[in-house]
């Protein structure tokens, strides 16, 4: 009964959020095709968690989306690191890798993957265009302290970035 009851609402929620959820994940992973797969997983999780439905479904979706994206990103970064370690001869960058914009994006993603999860989530959701109240609701934080938390996350991001790639 629970699932049947939720299915009509589910589609409403799906249509209202799918696009932005897929985009949010794509921003994290940098791979639109994979982002669509992961977005389906996120909605599937929602389908199976009737308790997540209701007023806060949007917030739940953003939180789950950004966490799913970050997990994927961390796995990928780890995998690449292992591949690099096992690869004795350092290979020269491919033309794509050398492309400055792609490199910049990759740097940002690496920093996000290695940061404290809470900070990364805040920055990514803020980057997806969520307002302070929406951020607070999505990450279950006190709206009054969001400003401070965002600022702290930005400082942490900067610190980690400089540590890895030097002053910009």
């Amino acid at each position, binding site marked *: 009964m629970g699932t049947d009851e939720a299915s009509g609402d589910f589609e409403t929620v799906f249509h209202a959020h799918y696009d932005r959820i897929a985009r949010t994940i794509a921003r994290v992973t940098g791979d639109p095709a994979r982002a669509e797969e992961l977005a389906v997983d996120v909605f599937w999780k929602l389908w199976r968690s009737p308790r997540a439905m209701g007023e806060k479904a949007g917030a739940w979706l953003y939180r789950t989306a950004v966490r799913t994206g970050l997990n994927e990103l961390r796995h990928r970064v780890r995998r690449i690191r292992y591949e690099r370690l096992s690869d004795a001869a350092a290979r020269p960058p491919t033309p794509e890798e050398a492309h400055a914009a792609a490199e910049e994006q990759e740097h940002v993603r690496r920093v996000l993957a290695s940061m404290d999860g809470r900070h990364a989530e805040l920055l990514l959701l803020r980057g997806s265009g969520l307002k302070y109240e929406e951020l607070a609701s999505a990450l279950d934080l006190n709206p009054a302290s969001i400003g401070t938390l965002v*600022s702290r996350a930005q400082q942490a991001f900067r610190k980690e970035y400089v540590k890895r790639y030097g002053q910009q």
Partner: protein
Amino acid sequence: MDSSEMNVDRWADDCLASLDPPSDWRPNAGQALGQLRARGQARRIGRGPLLWAAAAVAVAVGVGLLILRTPDAPILVGQVGNLRRIGNPPAAGAGTPAVHPPPPAQVARSRAPKPALQPTLAPQAATHFKESGSPTAPITVEIYLDYECPPCAAFYREMVPPLIAQYVRTGSVRLLHRDFPLPRHRYAAVAARYTNAAGRAGYYEAAVDQIFKTMAVWSRDGNIDEQLAQVLPSGVMEKVRGLVDHDPELDATVTDDVAMARRDQINRRPALVIVSKGERTVLAPIDSFDTLKTQLDQLLAAQLAWQQLSAAAGSPTTLEDFKAIDATREAWDRRASEILKALEATAGDWVADVGAGAGYYAMHLSGLVGTGGKVFAEDISDTSVVWLGRRVKLFQLPNVEVVKGAADDPKLPAASLAAVLVVNTYHHFTDHQAMAAQMLRALKPGGRLVIVDYSLRAHRTESRAEQLKRHEIDPDLVRVELGLAGFQVLKTEDPFLQRMPDVKNGGGIANADMWLMTAVRPK
């Protein structure tokens, strides 16, 4: 220090902004929904055997407990009894829902809707007490309620009274109660039986009121009788008891209502269906009375417009005809004045209304530009051209020139207009490239083009042609098309006017949001 912190802000924001996915990428919502439905179906098919397996595991665990525990220690008689009590219930408890057939009453209820699935409504007389308001009201609102669901009680308390006061009493809406008791609510079906019995006795509303008010009390032990007896006269109460106990027909309306709920694909309570011109639109969840009000007002306005248009045989001839059309237009395009403001037209300007229709905006533009200015009211439809001519005469608009355009040319003077307005027309352009080029040509450098049209986000992944069929167009497409034509798009308000956010079915323009785009001919 401050400035460096501010820089970190900006720098971090820029870094994050660099992650935006490619601008031409559009997540395929249709495909994703298809995958989800497939997963949902797979799961539903799998669920039966799963429950059986769960029951079997529970039985095995129960037996296992007995086997494991027995040789442990000297068994006292009491302990064995205890173990049996522990061992047996989990097995039976877990098995009951899946293994045993549901009790007879439930079978009767769940099977009964099938014959009623034929498109027949319950007979008038039998449902009469569940209805209120004028039978000739243009709109019927049907509410699906379960007496044991607290949100239903809240809905009944907060939204039904203003609905009755503002719409039912005024003759605009006929209200119909439908019973949709959830099987897992133990007393909801009994409560429905009581209200229907009270309805037969002429006390429907009083009974519904009391049952919702005292839900917290009777839902503990099912003693609805006691609560109703407090408000119904004792003679009536006797009659109600007689009906509840003995009348086999009492649940007939409930059966019909449940069947209707299935056809409406209702799966939450409360739910509300708006029936207008034979079309059923489900509204659930119902977040506020304002949402409902907005939707009812729009439907009533649309029906009124339709009636007036057909009354004038599709052709407004008098000043009153036009005023009536304009009134419905104002109810529809609630932000008409802002649309006009976006044109930034001032006295003395030359402007155009492309796709002017009955001339509502052309008339207002006439006032804006004054006698020193000029309005080109363009349309390609002969009917519109006749209407526009009539309006110009009736309202005495000497500065409005009616222009019969072509599909690829609005026939406007070159490089002379300060503004062009295109309301609810762009999606009709069969040759949008030519139209955009011609409008650009007609504008002075720096002249503004304001386009207002419809689009629902869920439809934006569809092809352009599919969207046009819905009388909708994605503003992102229009932005690109205008850019290609040489316009500079200044801004898009999307949505500019939001309509009926909770509509699930029922199609057409009535459900689509409006967007507004402002572009200029570069200097």
